[in-house]
């Protein structure tokens, strides 16, 4: 008797998984599909993205560490630009630089570094890891991206944010790698997602993306665009592509 009972239950569970899986897939289609789901690696990308979007919420926070655990050396792969414009920005304290937010927003705006620093600030001491495998702990200070999105009033239906770095005249050298990238609203509105202008108690160092960079606690290093200059809110990511660099769009798992 016990054998039949178990077997029947297992078959039921199997059928539920086989039917429930696709139902969930199509039901949540508009929130659970990454923009590159049709790519060669789309199946794995979609499974990882949808599984994580189902499991995580706006309340799932990355671990925070005490300040005494901040790493002595914060590793960098892509160095800061060395062109004239960037160097003059560095000496003038980024005078003339602005962060523009446009696209599917009611009030397209641009902010100076001082504008951002006058907004409600917060710090997060979290783990930063490269997809290569190395990691360090650092304290990042900045304004919540969700606060900026409230100010510009994103339109309902807007699903993605395309993050553009400052123009890079040294693109051809390959040493300075300023990739644009895009993120979804779940990452953008997360309470630990900052537009960071400070690091470990000081200004954001040039190599780490001065004047400001994106800093998400649940993503790998390469998704956190440095040297930000423009954010485009959109419901149509296809017109941009998904990201400027190599690799898949959702770097998660």
């Amino acid at each position, binding site marked *: 008797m*016990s*054998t039949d009972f*178990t*077997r029947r239950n*297992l*078959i039921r*569970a*199997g059928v539920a998984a086989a039917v429930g899986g696709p139902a969930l897939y199509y039901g949540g289609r508009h929130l659970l599909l990454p923009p590159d789901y049709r790519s060669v*690696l789309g*199946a*794995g*990308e979609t*499974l*990882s993205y949808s599984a*994580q979007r189902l*499991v*995580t*919420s706006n309340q*799932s*926070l*990355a*671990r925070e*560490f005490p300040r005494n*655990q901040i*790493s*002595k*050396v914060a*590793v960098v*792969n892509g160095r800061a630009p060395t062109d004239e414009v960037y160097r003059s920005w560095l000496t003038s304290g980024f005078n003339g630089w602005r962060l523009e937010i446009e696209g599917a927003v009611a009030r397209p705006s641009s902010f100076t570094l001082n504008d951002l620093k006058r907004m409600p600030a917060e710090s997060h001491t979290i*783990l930063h*890891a*490269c*997809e*290569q*495998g*190395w*990691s*360090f*702990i650092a304290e990042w200070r900045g304004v919540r991206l969700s606060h900026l999105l409230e100010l510009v009033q994103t339109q309902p239906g807007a699903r993605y944010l395309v993050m553009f770095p400052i123009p890079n005249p040294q693109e051809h050298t390959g040493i300075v790698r300023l990739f644009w990238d895009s993120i979804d609203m779940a990452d953008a509105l997360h309470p630990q997602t900052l537009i960071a202008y400070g690091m470990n108690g000081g200004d954001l160092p040039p190599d780490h993306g001065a004047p400001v960079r994106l800093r998400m*606690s*649940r*993503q*790998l290093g390469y998704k956190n665009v440095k040297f930000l200059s423009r954010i485009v809110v959109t419901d149509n990511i296809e017109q941009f592509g998904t990201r400027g*660099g*190599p*690799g*898949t769009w959702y*770097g*998660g*798992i």
Partner: protein
Amino acid sequence: MRTDNSSATLDRRVPAAPALRREPLGQFSATRAAQTPRHTAVVRITHWIMAASILGLLATGSGILISHPRLYWGETGSVYTPSLIDLPLPMIIGPSVWNRPIHFLFAWMLVFAWFAYVVAGLGTGHIRNNLLPYKEDLGWRRIWSVVSHHLRWKRMSTDQAGIYNVVQRLIYLGVVFVLFPAVVWTGLAMSFAVASVFPLLATSLGGFQSARTLHFVLVSLLLLFIATHLAMLVLVGFGSHVRAMISGQHPRESRSAP
């Protein structure tokens, strides 16, 4: 009917195959072989999906590892901090970019095949009958006799062909129910998104870098299993046993099951 409690327990332990146990085993292979396949269809299909995904995971995992072939303990680690293990490999930046997403694709394949294997294995009694060791075999003396038998290069007697011995059973169970879940666990512990919901996945292991190091150690154990598995196949007849895993037919001159 169930007056005796101990016999009820015994019934549950070896329920479907009393004949398999008490019947002379030579007779078993003669009478049952024609009817029952060496491996059921689910076992055959999931075996090859798992084999293919593990091959893919090893290849892409190596691609990720060579991007930073240093292993650490704790939360942090980089070229500027001391390492726990320094693999004698060059550090090549780049391969991880495309190897990571392919790695996850194979990981999903492996997880789905594993799940199908376990559900079907529990449902059909494959795990209980073929993998769960007999109670009387679970002693160091019995286990050592199997090991020493192999070490003295003796063939298993033909009446034991087609039935896993206690060492095989323990190793297969260990791979399926300990090694695979542990590899997935350490893999998930490296995901910041997953760890934001289940921080214990990472903290219980000592941190992000510890999870990465353990992932590598567990995969090394898996490689040891695969090497042994393949070596045993070669010893008992590679072709016929691979064919048995494809078609389900019993290997002709079966000396022991790998």
